């Protein structure tokens, strides 16, 4: 495969950025849900 380094860097960067966004949003949602459940059990939807 030609230009392997550039291809690996592109795909690696994409996985890191999209993974960071996805995991970050998942953790933020879970943290908010847990905090809301402590304050207002009806708000835990």
């Amino acid at each position: 495969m030609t230009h392997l380094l550039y291809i690996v860097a592109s795909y690696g960067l994409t996985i890191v950025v999209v993974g960071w966004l996805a995991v970050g949003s998942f953790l933020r949602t879970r943290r908010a849900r847990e905090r809301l459940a402590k304050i207002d059990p009806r708000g835990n939807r």
Partner: protein
Amino acid sequence: MGIVNIAPAPSTAGRSLHRFANPGRFLRLSGRILPYVAIIGLVVTLAGLYWGLALSPADWQQGDAVRIMYVHVPAAWLASFGYAMLAACSIASLVWRHPLADLAAAEIGPVGAAFTALCLATGSLWGKPMWGAWWVWDARMTSVLVLFFLYCGHVALVRAFDDQQRGYRAGAILALVGVVNLPIIKFSVNWWNTLHQPASITLSGAPSMAPAMLWPLLLCAVGGMFGFAAIVTARTRAAVMERRIRALTLAQIRGAEA
């Protein structure tokens, strides 16, 4: 004599938009849809990337470097698509005062900025082996860089005010002013002589790309679209819950002080 109501009836668009302004309804509906959107996004993107990396042919001129297209082009489309969504939320915020539109716009900003940065970075990684340069100030790349700055400006502006509503209003105005950049990005390769190649896929004509490359590209783009929607929806859900936590905490503090 009875009182005549001369207030204009809310528009159909406004009414249907406000049906989803209720945070509880939004949380219930998005909670049901989100897992499907995320799974579709993940599966379709992985299928597209596998097809693009392992099954599609190398380009006769560019060799295997063409495979960078399967991450670069969807990132570029999503950067523009995200900004169009940001502008739509800004209109909903300014015209209909839609409370969820403000939160959604604030959450689209960082995600759009990340995809624009990804587009610029993968473009550089594609440009270096093909053009011999990481960066050139041509119209397409410069206009995408301006898009990145617009996203960053929006992110900074909505968080710059103590009064959150003022931040949302200022961000919405910036987002609408910046919309002028979207057609510049799209047509920059036609209006100016650029190092960047013209569009291979247009709405008016047949794509100038082999189907063996076109299909994985479209799969990556559709999967990326679902992934983008899933990330923004999850962040907006978190923002709705965080706003509720703030309101309840403030109410508790005021109740304790009274």
